[in-house]
């Protein structure tokens, strides 16, 4: 059972239920707490662990191959935009890691209609590609010397070299 919920810590907020990409995290209406209802479909993505505000969701990697004893701690701080990890080996070795997760404030990304409108619907240029910085080329590239080789490219190469 890869991820599981500590009964004493879960407050039943449902954030893990909301975020689980595989629909595994479910709400137990009797206990009013979350649980992993479908461990066989769990990819151990750890999103439920990362999103739980109470740190009530934990992971015990698959019994198929993982001896007990290793531990992981993860804090995804969306104010400082850093993710902190602590990995504890079965033999007790501890590693701490921290990585940035985003360079701009949450909620600041511009949607499609926040960019100026354009009329060239018939061209092959995509959004913002009227700007050379975005396109990377003076104009939209096409193959410089297009060929038409039907079938094996190896045969064509061999015939060309003869």
């Amino acid at each position, binding site marked *: 059972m890869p991820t599981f919920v500590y009964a004493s810590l879960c407050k039943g907020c449902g954030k893990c239920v909301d975020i689980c*990409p595989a629909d595994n995290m479910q709400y137990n*209406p009797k206990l009013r707490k979350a649980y992993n209802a479908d461990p066989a479909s769990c*990819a151990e993505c750890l999103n439920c662990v990362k999103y739980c505000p109470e740190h009530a969701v934990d992971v015990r990697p*698959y019994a*198929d191959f993982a001896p*007990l004893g290793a531990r992981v701690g993860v804090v995804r701080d969306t104010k400082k935009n850093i993710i902190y990890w602590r990995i504890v080996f079965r033999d007790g070795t501890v590693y701490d890691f921290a990585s940035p997760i985003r360079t701009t404030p949450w909620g600041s990304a511009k949607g499609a209609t926040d960019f100026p409108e354009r009329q060239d619907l018939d061209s092959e240029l995509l*959004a913002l590609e009227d700007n050379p910085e975005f396109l*990377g080329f003076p104009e939209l590239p096409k193959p410089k010397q*297009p060929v038409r080789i039907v079938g094996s490219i190896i045969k064509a190469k061999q015939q060309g070299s003869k």
Partner: protein
Amino acid sequence: MSLHFPTKVVETDILVVGGGMAGCGAVFEAKYWCRGKCKVTLVEKANLEKSGAVGMGLSATNLGVFTTDPDDPKPEEFVQYVRNDLLGVVREDLVYDIARHMTSTIKLFDMWGLPLWRDPKTGKYLRTGRWQHPIHGESYKAIIAEPCKKSADEVYERVFVTHPLLDEERPNRIAGVVGFGVRDGTFYVFKAKAVIVAAGGTSLLYRPRSVGEGLGRAWYPTWANGSAYAIPLLAGAETVNFEFRLVVVRFKDAYGPVGFPYLLLKMRSTDSKGQQWEPLPDEAKAQLSKIFYDYAWARPTPTPIRTWVTIQNLKEGRGPDLMQTQERLPDEESLKVLFEDYLDMTPTQALYWASQNIHPQKQPSELVPTEPYLQGSHGSSAGMWASGPPDIAPEEYRWGPNRMLTVEGLFGAGDTVGASGHKFSSGSFTEGRIAGKSAVRYVLGPAKDYKPVVSNDTIERYKEIVYRPMEWYHKNKPLTTTPEMPPQLTNWFEVHPNYLNWYQLLVRLQKIMDEYVAGWGMFYTTNMYMLGRAWELLKMLEEDFRFAAAASLHELLRVWETYHRLIVGQAVTFSMMNRKESRGYYLNADYPYIDEDNWHVFTHVRRDPKTGQWSFRTSPVIHIIPP
């Protein structure tokens, strides 16, 4: 449980199915051109913020910028690379089209807040290898989801799309899709002028290497269930190269990717006797060229050949291959880079090392070839057959707007579109953008006055079909004394004479695919007899879906996911039965060699939506970039 779920009809101009990288790209681009003129709707089975293959994070945009800068690669070069890597069978127009639009995608990601690694001196994005940029990607998907949500007119989350709807007056014309709300059971009918399928490829179609608790431990996420192919196939669209499944070499059990250690840390791998296999030595290339012709000499060595080497080593008792991590981790800093790479995208890899006390700076790690996957955005060319870009595609590859499949109004992007591998996350987003703009042009042009024709009878019929597994469960449940399980938990081992639950259907499918259609259990080997037998057994499994049972909406989701996998499995088997050659990640013992003279072709499989009959044809490969 009352099965009287409400029906909700949603009318839109462009419907995007699947909110992963390709879907988000499609929504953003479609809305950019649509504004005020047409409506863009997104339907996604999970939560947009962490859904799709990138949902758990990623440590690189595996396809980066292409510019005039001499240091940056050019689209031509990329086509040559992808062509070699996929052993010559590739749609060069599609690959080129993605490369030429990559820069704007990366600039958008950068602007939205994705932490791309930069060279401190020049300020340019760093590269690992020729094509990719390393990132701090834990929140990659969350960052991309934000502008996507802001762009869409409507977003439906936790709605699973089960079937396509075809127009009742025009043959071979998509009219929309149906599905159900996973949380409240609402039956959804989406009617649209254009549908872009940007759903996920297929994991768990083959028996995974972990079969106990770890059934879901696969390299490609468990929630990728093949809807990318099942929806178009059920609508009657053609596939391409479905026999070319993907088998990748990964760290054993945890399935951590190996590109980063090879490319950034310059690690090498050997067999268990110490002979080096990656980078592949020249003597080995000379041997391999007897089987793989010139492809054995291609630089870098094509992925199918590298995978083949690892399989061969295992088979002949020299395995497993070992990543010699300890040779290239001289200090704390490099160890940190390695660990963070996995924590950003495959946390299980780090946990695996911790649980077995494997210290990568002291000892090597085992590698293993995975079970096969079906997907169009990584190192394989399986997918749906799509129309090409009007300005560069050969005439034979242009029958409709760019990225339209062989069904009118049905578009594809990302894993859906085949014969154009190596898109990965950023390329899938880019292809979504291409399909998005193309769909707008179509909706505002030729399809301007189109109104989907779908009768109420059809809608009622689909509603009955979709909820039948729940009805069937509740009708039959009282027949035996087995206690009912908690509301959401599958009773995997319930023995019932009248029904099968999703888990039982899934393991049957996996057993057939693994044992007959070249899974890992058969060392990726099959023959014509086995394929014929698989075809019969898959037919019976399809019939048994009449007896599928679902105790809850969660199980109903799993039943339909499994059904989509079954459709994909049938297409794979049918494609292999008709491909009298081994190419890619499997061996047909009856046809063990690459037949370069006759079989340099695309293979297409189609399922007739009216009769359910399967058909097969081939079409020539046309190269547009010089050798």
